[in-house]
């Protein structure tokens, strides 16, 4: 059983600059920030390394940090330009009874994160959901299509903070 500080030291020694920092001053459990395009290598190491054994991905979720610049578009709607979107990974080792949380942040205008779907099959639908709701592209995912919204939905990504509902979908009025 290892606490997040120990796991951070192990990862830092192995991956160096890919592991950005350990954040533990938040009221939530502490988490480790990782470079978005290297997260798959880190996750594979976490799963297979003796003494870490993170065999289980408990959850993978997208977050809109909404930390960009808020500007008005031509229809006077507030949109967010720049900033980041994030993905959180909650890992658990059932054998060793320890947990760790990873976070990656990626550019909002072109959000790209390495897929961990090959490492935990549970990530398949979770990544599709994060793609569906936030538009985060998971590189090397074998089937990155919408999972909840209609496949031909063109109204954008609904859980982004600046999301605007389209007026119509297939002739059906969307607003109340």
């Amino acid at each position, binding site marked *: 059983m290892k606490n997040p500080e120990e796991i951070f030291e192990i990862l830092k020694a192995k991956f160096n600059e890919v592991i950005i920092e350990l954040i533990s001053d938040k009221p939530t459990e502490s988490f480790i920030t990782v470079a978005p395009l290297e997260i798959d290598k880190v996750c594979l190491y976490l799963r297979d390394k003796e003494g870490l054994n993170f065999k289980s991905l408990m959850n993978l979720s997208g977050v809109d940090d909404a930390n960009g610049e808020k500007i008005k578009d031509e229809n006077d709607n507030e949109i967010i330009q720049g900033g980041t979107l994030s993905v959180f990974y909650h890992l658990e080792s059932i054998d060793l009874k320890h947990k760790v949380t990873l976070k990656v942040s990626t550019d909002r205008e072109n959000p790209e994160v390495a897929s961990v779907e090959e490492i935990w099959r549970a990530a398949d639908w979770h990544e599709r959901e994060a793609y569906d709701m936030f538009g985060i592209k998971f590189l090397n995912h074998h089937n990155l299509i919408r999972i*909840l*919204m*209609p496949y031909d*939905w063109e*109204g954008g990504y*609904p859980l982004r903070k600046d*999301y605007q*509902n389209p007026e119509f*979908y*297939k002739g*059906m*009025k*969307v*607003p*109340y």
Partner: protein
Amino acid sequence: MGLLDKQFTDDNIIITKVEDLLNWARLSSLWQMGFGLACCAIEMMATSASHYDFDRFGVIPRPSPRQSDVIIISGTVTFKMAIRIKRLYEQMPDHKYVISMGSCSNCGGPYWEHGYHVLKGVDRVIPVDVYVPGCPPRPEALLEGLLKLQEKIRNETLVSKTA
């Protein structure tokens, strides 16, 4: 006016209008499409079960829209589902009736403002005969809705479908 009012004291003869006979036949065996969407479907199933016994009104769930007379929209209608509901409705033979059950299918319910995925009322895709309010409505409310529908069908004429 009830169908059996004009019965002779002699057995086996009834005088009635064709309209009344057809309406009586129609309203007494409203076959329901076996179709549920959300928590309202649980109440609908409870209504079909022995305690509330939908069958006593001639309501039998059918596995195919082609054998159904009434579709009960029991739950949240998402855009994805709305397309399919419309197709199912079109596959039902005339005369066909729609009961909108619960707040979600009446008007979007709790999803009315921020539900990016919810159609704000099933009446935006298919015509509704009876709206049953509630979230979800109790089985008694659904039975009341069915009785209202039967009332509507009883007043139909051959020239115009009112329900």
